[in-house]
């Protein structure tokens, strides 16, 4: 079961700094390849899309396939010029959407 995502964003940074953002969400990432106890394939259920927005503009996204490990972890960088809010979004195969927000103060 997907639970609350965990995201690590520095609380503050200097303008022009390249910061590292780490994201993790608990999810089984059922690949659709495995067979259950009854011998039938367990249907695919994964996080298929991750997006990161900063002050409303998309800064990074990832198209995810079953080849990504359970509890998908994604680390990337952003060059920050101003203070603002990061909005992170994960899309599940079943249509659910998991979100998280983090603020950063840029001096």
């Amino acid at each position, binding site marked *: 079961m997907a639970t609350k995502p965990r995201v690590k964003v520095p609380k503050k940074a200097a303008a022009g700094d390249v910061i590292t953002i780490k994201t993790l969400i608990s999810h089984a990432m059922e*690949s659709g*390849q495995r067979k259950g106890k009854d011998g039938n394939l367990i249907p695919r259920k994964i996080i298929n899309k991750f997006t990161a927005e900063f002050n409303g503009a998309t800064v*990074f996204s990832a198209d995810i396939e079953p*080849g990504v490990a359970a509890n998908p972890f*994604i680390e*990337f960088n952003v060059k920050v010029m101003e203070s603002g809010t990061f909005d992170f979004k994960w899309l599940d195969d079943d249509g659910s959407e998991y979100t998280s927000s983090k603020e950063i103060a840029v001096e």
Partner: protein
Amino acid sequence: MKLSRRKVLALGAGFGAAALTGLSTSGIAFADEAATQAAIDAFAAGAEVGEGRISLTAPEIAENGNTVPISVDVESEMTEADHVAAVMILASGNPNPGVITFNFTPMNGVAAATTRIRLAKTQDVIAVAKMSDGSVFMDKKLVKVTIGGCGG
């Protein structure tokens, strides 16, 4: 399986590649060289695939194929005019070669990303980077897998 393969193709088509049809879907569940090559071709959209600029970091030996850490790093100024548009990761020996595609913007500052992937068996992991000008670069690493992932 069929659905995800179609998704791989749809992704390529989104980048303006010609529609690819007639991919063999034989009884073998593992991606073959052809499927991997098709995914690269679709992603490259006709551009020559070059070497260099991109570097893929992966362990030489992965004890557990269920979670293998990998990183990609592409040399780029990451300006509006010249930046890395996307990096696609492929696992040539998995049931589906497609693993993940990172979509970058100039706001990233550096074109680097890390994630954890599944590897079904010992195989080449391939990273393909597409620049904003359409040029394409590739790197690959052989990863030896002791215990395969993907629930095999």
